[in-house]
């Protein structure tokens, strides 16, 4: 397949930006979290592209580690969300304002 590296990176950048937008504009904690997953996937795509470009395996191993992290982070994150929901019944970040003076 002949695709310029730039196009892979641009795609990755777009995905990353979409993820960032999601984090910034959504109020539902779970969707924010999903947007973060989108960002990590953008990172993975870029890594695969670069790995292919440099023709070394380092990038792909990095992806492997990022996936591990993503799984770990999601499990802890969802556990925290569950714990919070037990006590407060909300997933809206705007309602998480107990600590404002």
């Amino acid at each position, binding site marked *: 397949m002949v695709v310029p590296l730039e196009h892979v990176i641009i795609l990755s950048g777009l995905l990353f930006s979409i*993820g960032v937008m999601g984090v910034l504009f959504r109020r539902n904690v779970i969707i924010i979290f999903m947007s973060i997953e989108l960002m*990590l996937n953008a990172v993975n795509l870029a890594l695969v592209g670069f790995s292919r470009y*440099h023709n070394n395996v*380092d990038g792909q191993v*990095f992806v492997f580690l990022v996936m591990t992290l993503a799984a770990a982070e999601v499990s*802890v994150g969802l556990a*925290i969300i569950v714990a919070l929901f037990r006590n407060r019944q909300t997933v809206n970040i705007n309602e998480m304002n*107990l*600590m404002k003076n």
Partner: protein
Amino acid sequence: MDLSLYFTRQDLWGILPEIVLLVGALIILSIELFARSQRAAMLGVGILSLVIAGGFASKNFGSSFILFQGMVTLNDYSTFFDLLYMTAGIVTMVISYNYLERKGGETRGEYFALILFATMGMMLMTRGNDLVIIFLGMELLSLSLYVLVGFLRHDVFSNESAIKYLLLGAFATGFFLFGAVLVYGTTGTTNFQHIASAITNNEILSDTLLSLGIGLLLVGFAFKVALVPFHMWSPDVYQGAPTSVTAFLCTAPKAAGFGALLKVFLVAFPALHADWQDLLWALALLTMIVGNISALVQTNVKRMLAFSSVTHAGYLCIGILVLNEMGVSAILFYLLVYSVMNLGAFGIISLLEKEEKGVNFKDYEGLASKHPWLSASLALFMLSLAGFPPTAGFVAKYTLFSSAISEGYIWLIIIAILNTLVSVYYYVRLIVNMYMRTSEETLVPFLHPLLSVVIFILAISIMFFGVLPGWLIDTVTQAARIYT
């Protein structure tokens, strides 16, 4: 495939502290599993493993190794940080002896185990010589901290701060990772030395992409060490987290963040120093001012200290800006002193805290008459944070600012000094509340001999480093010399 090529005896010796911490954590978890609520035993194992790991780590002082084909470097710089983390870990464990019970929670094995894991993560951050290791260390630290911050799982504040910390931490990870990827993409490697050589030999794919990558890395670090405008999580998290965790959170991880940041910029991108100078200048300025002004209006002591730590991060940025031997050693010195002060301050707050009380300025009225020694120590930590001589805080600020002046950042230092003067207001306010006001109801501290000893040692060391800083300055200079 012969594994022995990739995993030598030297590698094993090098990561012995990590192994000790891992084994300690596993022992604690086993105690939790088989003999429930053996708090003293778990605390003992935790402290013991930190001490043993510290012993193994300090054995390397004065020598340097490269392990795992350049993944990890061991030298005085990393050892200095290792010992700093371990000290913070021990103090945190002691002050949280039964803090969680007083807040309606339960001190469980997971708590101590996670502190050990967090320490391990931090060690990897400053030992790592590869973006992959830094990334993994950072995440090991962050994951442990997410759980620790939310450790009072029936407490809404704790939940809420955990979720904020998690979301922004994960967000920051995204930025850090994208930065790392762009650096990898442009240079074709994640090893610091190789990156540096690729940059000096100009074998990079694209300058724009590299600068972008460095910028994103910086953003990631800025989130982790709470530089303005990426600091918004810190007050909420510091306030909502259990105070013992806050003590840990605002000292060791911040040191680790700065340590890793310094290492990345010192080893991987020294050639591009000029490119990001202005950015750091602005960051330092913003961080100092915003942190200070926000701290002025707080009524909650934990929140005030959170903003104060933001301000301190701003001062530390000045050191990164300087980035010569003097600057780096000043940062190391500052980080150590800062950690001691904050551990002491938060430690005392955690002793005074009970259920809902003990975190507002008002609660401290009239404390001095009832508990003179405790008040005196807290006052000492506050004065040190404000930078009064002859405390260590003064020496730290002095070395930092003088290193910046010698590099010509006059304006920045003037603003920094002005900031320091403003900051006196909120630190002294607490002292005024303790000594000059009275109240019928004063706080009752929880005092355990072990705790008193630890607080005493922290207070003494603040005075000691303030009066006789020479030995410490020699040490940090030696540690800083590695990379500059």
